[in-house]
Structures are given as C-alpha cells and as structure tokens.
C-alpha cells in the first residue's frame, strides 16, 4: 500500500500529486501515533510486540529512504508547483517524528541541501515577484529544520550527522533568514537558532566549530534583541534564542558580547510587554550558571534581583510565579560571600517582598516564595537575621493554617531546617514559637490538619538539632505525654505525633527511648479520647519506620493477643508504617515482610469488617512495595479452602483493588 502510494508521487497533475502526498502523510502519521500509543498496551503482550518491531525495521530500512528520495524529487523539480513542495515538506516533518527519523547522514545531508535551495532561490526571486506562497514555503522549510534539530536523540536522528550537515549547508541560510522581512519567517528562524547550541553539545562539536557557531549566532541574534520596535513574537523568540546561546555556548563568546546580551536582557526585563519572556530567559541562563563556574551572572545580579522583587508586588499571578522561580535559581548562582559586591539593603527589600506574599490564600506562590527565601539563606547565611524578621512571622502564621499541605508544607519544612542548620535561630526558640501557634488559637478548636502540620514542623527541626538537644527534647516530650490530663488533649495529640514524626527521621532506639515510647503508645490506645487513640496509632507506625527492629516485634506480638478495636489500631499503625516506606520508595521493609505476613493472613478472616479492610489496605500497600512476594500470597489465599472462604475472598478482593488503584483512603 505504502509503496504504491510512493510510486505515484510522480503523478503529473499537481492536484492529484498533492492529494497523494497528503494521503501518504496521513497514513504515516497514523502509523507513528499508533506505534507510540501502542507501546503502552504492548508492554504486556509479546506477540504484538513482535509485529510492532517489524513495522519499525521496515520503516527504517526501506521506506524512509524511499520517501526522502521521492520528496527530494518533488523539491528540486523546476516546474514543480509550490503546493506539491509544501506537501512534501509536510511529509518529511511527519517522517522526522517517526522512530528512526528521516534517516542516516546521507538523507539528512540531501534534505538539508534541498531546503537550502528553497531558502536561497527565493532570496533572488524575492525582488522580482514575492508571492505569498514562496514565503510560506520558506516558513515550512524552517519548521522542518527545527523539527529535525529538536529530534536528535538515540531513537531518531544522530546528533553528529545532523551537526555535520547543518554547519556547512544550513546555518548561513538560517542566519540570513533572520534578516527577512516577514515576521513569521524571522521568528521561526530564531526558533531554529534556539535549537542549535544544544545540538552542538549533543554532536560533540570541536572548539573551533563552537566558536564559529557562537559568533555567527551572536551576529544573527544581537540586532533582533537590540531593536525595540519589532513584533512581539520576534522579541520573544530572540530572547529565548539568546538564552540558549548564552547558557550553552558562553565559553565561546567574548566578555563584551556577553555583557551586551546581559544589558539587553535587563532592558527587556524592565519592559512590560517582554518581561515574562525575559524572566524565562534569565531563569534558563541562571540554571546553566548554577552548574557552571565560568558563566558569571554578577554583572547584572544586583539590578536583576531588585527588578524581580519589584515584580513580586504586581497582582498578576503568572508574572509573580515566573519571577519567583527565576529568583530562586538566580540566587543559587551567588557563590561565596565575598564574590560579588551586593547592594546594601538589597536582600532586605527582596525578603520583605517575599514575606509579604506568604499567605494561605495562594499556596503555590507561598511554596515558591518559601523556596526562594530558602535559596537566599543558603547562598548567603548572613541573611539569617533578615529571614527571622521578614519571613519567619509569615511562615509561622502559615504553619497554623488548616489549608497548608504538600509543596508549600515541604518548602516550609526545608526553610525551617535551613534556619536551624545555618544557626539563624536556636532550636529551642523556634520550637517554642511553633508550640505557641497551638495556644494562640485557644478560642476556636485547632483542626486535626493543623496539629499534624505543626507536629511535622517540630519533628523536622528537632531532627537537625544536635544529638544532645534531641535527647532532652524527646525526653521532655515523653514526660509531657505521661503527665497529660484530659483537658489538654490537643497538646497530647501534638506531642504524640511529634514523637512519631521524629522517630520516622531519627532512630529512637539509639536514643534509648524506644521502649518508653512504645509504652506510651500502648497506654494511649486505652485512652477514652478517640483522636488520641488514632494519633497514637499513626505515631507508632511512623516511629517504626526509623527503628523497624525496635518496634515491629512489639506491634506483631500485641496484634497476636489483642482483639477488636485495639487490633484495628495496631493494624492502622502497620498500614501507616508501610505507607511511609512507599512514600520513600525504599525497600527497608523487605526483610520484615515474612514476619508481618502470617499476622495479616490470619486476620484476613476476622469477623469485623473494619479489621478486614485494614488488613486489605496493608496487603494492598505491601503489594505495591513487593509485588513479587505478595501477589502469589494473595493468589494462594483465594485458592485455599477455609471455613470462612467468603471473608477471606472479600479481603483479598479489596487488597487487589488497593494495589491497583494505589490510593489511600
């Protein structure tokens, strides 16, 4: 079928030819998309895998070279109309998306040659009669080049081949296109140039090649970046092209050239229409500078930081987010203290702006702001005092927000940790501040979420304190729980969770408190308060993560002798423990599985539905951790004959359900 279509490419009538090429393009694109979507299904069945493999081989060896040849014939035909040329380009674009791409170096070379003639020929013709068609053809040719360049990976094009073909043939033409007069062609040409630096690195170009490319790119891009009365699209493309030039090929640019680009970037940052694109460009460059000593951002550091801080006061959420992300990466480029001369009061104002936007009305912005503050503190430990005065109050208010969760919570934790390790604040002081957050809201009830969050915060800062402080901290917490009375159930809950979260990070058995902690948990299981019971179960599960050998035998022994409610609580501890291991994706639990399994199997046929569903969750979670061990066990449970067949089956069914969905209630 495909071969027949390719043969008909030489059809005389143009309309007919265009239709045939388009039809073939359609066929090819369906094949490509079927292959990529098929991969998902194919993972499980081997027979179809073979069939799929055959298609690929076919495409690589015969069809692609045939297509390229046929397309070339279309492209260089003197009398060939623009329409068939354009559809040939579309076909090649589709082909370059396929596995295997356009083909080896020969094909790439010849395709580039044809495209060059398109870009070139019309340059001469332009003065005589500029048709809309020839312009759009040029645009399409540039698009094709961009697609080929961006698809340099082991499955498709070989970067070295593309590079070798690109340098002599295409690059001068593309650079020339930047000086065209149709804005779309200019923008597309700039986009192609944006791909070039990355390709150079992939294709392991030599130093002289790099220098050559860098200077020609600079010459092409600089004027477009400098002019201000241009189309928006051109400006944005010029910004991203210069970002990619600077971040990859900075070693080949002269200092003067670099400073010129930096100045222009700064100018664009100040302009309202281009600032977002400029921020993105700066983020890209600073991400590169972070990992590379030789790219120095210092000339514009001060000005950029203050400019970004200004943008934080804007109402525009998107702008705020990009500015924050840029700030975050940019600050990390700051090397040692003495390296760059920083303006006095710069961090003062930046941090003040950062602190102002921390509120639970927008947690994502919160997360970015906290993480930027953390980066500042990391890069400049001397800013600790400023963080304490500008960021900490807002962070504490945030810590008692019932909405606080995931990314915002984790960046808050990282910041608190950094505050302790950089000695900006002492552990005791920060802990007291955190505990106070519970008391201030005495009027209303503190929600469960808040207690959980505060407990994690306190446990996190305790985990980075000195061992001596940790010891006295955990002892005082245990005493507090022991002494607690019914009226301050909330603080008991907090303390219980603190011990659990702390035990998750630090092995409690090495501090000699594992036994007393386990005793408290067991006592709390008998508490009259349901929430305390529940939190004690969670804490026991989490503490076991840090010291599995110390806690697990106790849990299992208790499981053996208890029944009903207590069994349920112990199983939920076990579930929490397993889930913590799942969050970490660690296999620290594998050696304990043989110990756990008999107990779970036994409780599969418990009369109480609550116990059974907890067992099912444990089994489901374990199956996610160790499918090879657990799945056969589940199968065996289903097939084994027992008096309570229905109960066992119920449990296994739910366990499989949990394992498949991976969700936790």
């Amino acid at each position, binding site marked *: 079928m495909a071969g027949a279509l390719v043969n008909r490419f030489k059809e005389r009538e143009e309309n007919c030819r265009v239709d045939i090429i388009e039809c073939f393009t359609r066929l090819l694109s369906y094949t490509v998309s079927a292959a990529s979507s098929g991969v*998902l*299904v194919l*993972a*499980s*069945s081997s027979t179809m895998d073979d069939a799929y493999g055959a298609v690929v081989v076919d495409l690589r060896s015969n069809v692609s070279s045939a297509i390229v040849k046929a397309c070339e014939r279309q492209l260089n035909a003197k009398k060939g109309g623009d329409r068939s040329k354009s559809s040939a380009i579309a076909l090649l674009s589709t082909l370059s998306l396929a596995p295997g791409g356009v083909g080896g170096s020969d094909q790439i070379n010849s395709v580039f040659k044809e495209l060059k003639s398109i870009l070139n020929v019309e340059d001469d013709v332009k003065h005589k009669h500029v048709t809309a068609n020839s312009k759009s053809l040029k645009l399409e040719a540039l698009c094709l080049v961009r697609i080929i360049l961006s698809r340099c990976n082991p499955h498709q094009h070989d970067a070295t081949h593309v590079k070798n073909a690109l340098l002599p043939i295409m690059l001068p033409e593309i650079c020339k296109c930047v000086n065209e007069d149709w804005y779309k062609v200019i923008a597309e040409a700039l986009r192609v140039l944006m791909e070039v630096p990355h390709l150079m690195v992939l294709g392991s170009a030599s130093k002289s090649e790099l220098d050559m490319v860098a200077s020609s790119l600079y010459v092409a891009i600089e004027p477009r970046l400098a002019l201000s009365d241009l189309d928006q699209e051109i400006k944005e493309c010029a910004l991203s092209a210069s970002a990619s030039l600077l971040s990859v090929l900075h070693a080949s640019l002269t200092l003067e050239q670099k400073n010129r680009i930096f100045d222009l970037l700064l100018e664009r940052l100040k302009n309202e229409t281009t600032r977002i694109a400029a921020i993105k460009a700066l983020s890209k460059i600073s991400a590169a500078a972070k990992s590379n000593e030789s790219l120095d951002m210092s000339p514009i550091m001060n000005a950029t930081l203050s400019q970004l801080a200004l943008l934080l006061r804007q109402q525009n*959420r998107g702008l705020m987010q990009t500015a924050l992300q840029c700030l975050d990466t940019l600050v990390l480029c700051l090397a040692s203290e003495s390296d760059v001369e920083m303006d006095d009061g710069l961090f003062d104002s930046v941090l003040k702006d950062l602190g102002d936007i921390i509120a639970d*009305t*927008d*947690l*994502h912005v919160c997360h970015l702001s906290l993480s930027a503050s953390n980066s500042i503190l990391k890069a400049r430990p001397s800013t600790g005092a400023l963080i304490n005065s500008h960021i900490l109050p807002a962070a504490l208010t945030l810590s008692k927000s019932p*909405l606080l*969760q*995931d*990314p915002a919570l984790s960046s808050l934790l990282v910041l608190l940790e950094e505050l302790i390790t950089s000695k900006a604040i002492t552990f005791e002081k920060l802990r007291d501040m955190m505990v106070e957050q519970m008391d201030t809201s005495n009027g209303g009830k503190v929600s469960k979420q808040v207690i959980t969050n505060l407990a994690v915060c306190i446990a996190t800062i305790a985990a980075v304190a000195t061992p001596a402080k940790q010891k006295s901290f955990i002892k005082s917490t245990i005493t507090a729980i022991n002494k607690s009375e019914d009226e301050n159930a909330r603080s008991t809950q907090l303390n219980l969770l603190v011990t659990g979260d702390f035990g998750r990070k630090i092995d409690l058995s090495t501090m000699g408190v594992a036994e007393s902690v386990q005793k408290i948990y067991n006592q709390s299981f008998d508490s009259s308060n349901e929430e305390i019971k529940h939190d004690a179960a969670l804490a026991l599960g989490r503490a076991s993560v840090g010291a599995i050998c110390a806690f697990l035998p106790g849990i299992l022994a208790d499981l053996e002798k208890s029944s009903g409610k207590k069994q349920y609580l112990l199983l939920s501890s076990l579930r929490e423990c397993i*889930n913590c291991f*799942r*969050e970490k*994706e660690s296999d620290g639990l594998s050696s304990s599985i043989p110990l756990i399994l008999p107990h779970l199997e036994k409780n599969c046929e418990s009369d109480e539905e609550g116990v059974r569903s907890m067992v099912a969750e444990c089994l489901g979670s374990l*199956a*996610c*951790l160790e*499918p*090879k061990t657990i*799945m*056969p066990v*589940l*199968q065996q449970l*289903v*097939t084994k004959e027992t008096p309570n*067949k*229905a109960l066992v*089956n*119920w449990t*296994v*069914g*739910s366990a*499989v*359900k949990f*394992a*498949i*969905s*991976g969700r*936790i209630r």
Partner: protein
Amino acid sequence: MCNFLSRVYFLKTQTKYLLIHLCVVSPIEIAPFMPTFLGLLKEDDIGVKNVALLMVYSAVHNTPQLVIPHLKELILPQMIELAQLNMERTINLGPFKHKVDDALPLRKAALTVFATCLEKCPASLDVSSFMPVIAKALDDVEDIQLQTHQIVLTMCSRCPIPVVGAADSFVAALDKTVNKKKGQKTGTELERVYEWIKSGLRVMIAISRVDGAMTNQQFAEFFNRINNSSAHQFLLNAVDDDC
C-alpha cells in the same frame, strides 16, 4: 465577581497538589494473577461479588490493559449476570412490610463498570451483548434508571449502532418512565418526578437523532406519540432549553 473567579482558580490549583504520588504495582506484576482474582466475580457471597466488581472498576479506571484481555471471557458474562441479579426479600416488621433488595448495590456497580469500560476501552467491549441488560435496567428503580439513561446517552454518541439495533427493546421501559404519574406530589417531590421524566425524554431524543433509529417502527411510533402529546410539551420544551 472577580473575587469569586480568583477563588475558583485558587481551588483549582489547590486540588492539583492534593494528589499524593505513591508507587503502584506495575501492571506486569499483577497481570498473571488477574484470572484468579477475576474468579471472585463468580463467588456466591454478595459481599465478595461487590468487592470484586469494585476491583474490576478500579482496574478499568486506572490500568485498562489489565482487564482488556479478560473482558470477553471472564468479566462481561459475569457483569451481565450481576447487572440483572435480583434478590428482593420482604422483612416483616409487624405492622409494616419492608422490601429490601440485597442485589441493588451489585447492579449499580456492574452498570458503573460497564459505563467506565465504555469510556476507557470501548473497542474491547461487546456492546450489543449488554443491550438486554440495559433494556432491563431502564425498567429498574429510580437511581438505576437515571444511571442507565446516562449510559444510553453516552452510547448514542460513541457507539450508536447497537443502540439502533436495540431501540425497540427500550421502548416499553421508556414509555413507562415518561408517563410517570405525578399523583398528589408537590414541591421538591414533584420536581424530582419531573427530572426523572425529563431524563427519559432526553434519552428518547438522543436515540431519535441517531442515524437509522427512526426506521425502527416501534420506536418511531413511540417518539411521534410523545412528541405530539400535549401533556409532554412543557417538559419537552424544558429539555430543549437544556440542550
């Protein structure tokens, strides 16, 4: 208004971060065991059947490739059976008699699984073999009827051919639904009856728009009769407004 919009946006961005990413079992690990677990669908105990259906649902929803190979032989026959299971029993409460249908959750779950299959893997589903079940479900209790109406609406847009073939078997049940008596009901109860009838009318209209449905004499007669009935005009207009 602006405030409201920002609030909506805020909620949207918040929920995005609610999903905790935890590892799940890779389908390759479970696949060899699936036939055994799917055998649970055949167990006698209703609770087990229900859990098994939930399991199938979660598989279809999360990793359809796990169930697709077994859909035809192991799952669909059971689903067809379970979706028609009726276990009504009467509880004697002295002066009152109360009817309980233990199989109701099963029927609901089976229909949900079918609806999810229709969404996730329609190509592997033998839709026409399920048509008698749909016809029966259209005559079931209220919430199953409403659920089935949704399924038929989906089928009308996604796989209309079996619907056309089975249109005449739907007529009796739909006729009953759209001619529900409102009795002495007022207020919200009346509203509910109207919504029920409207849901039936929507299905009727959707089927009538499918190519070839009107060549089915029985359905065409039903459609024309309802369309011209004065009692249905105000509800038909309301349905039209919704569309």
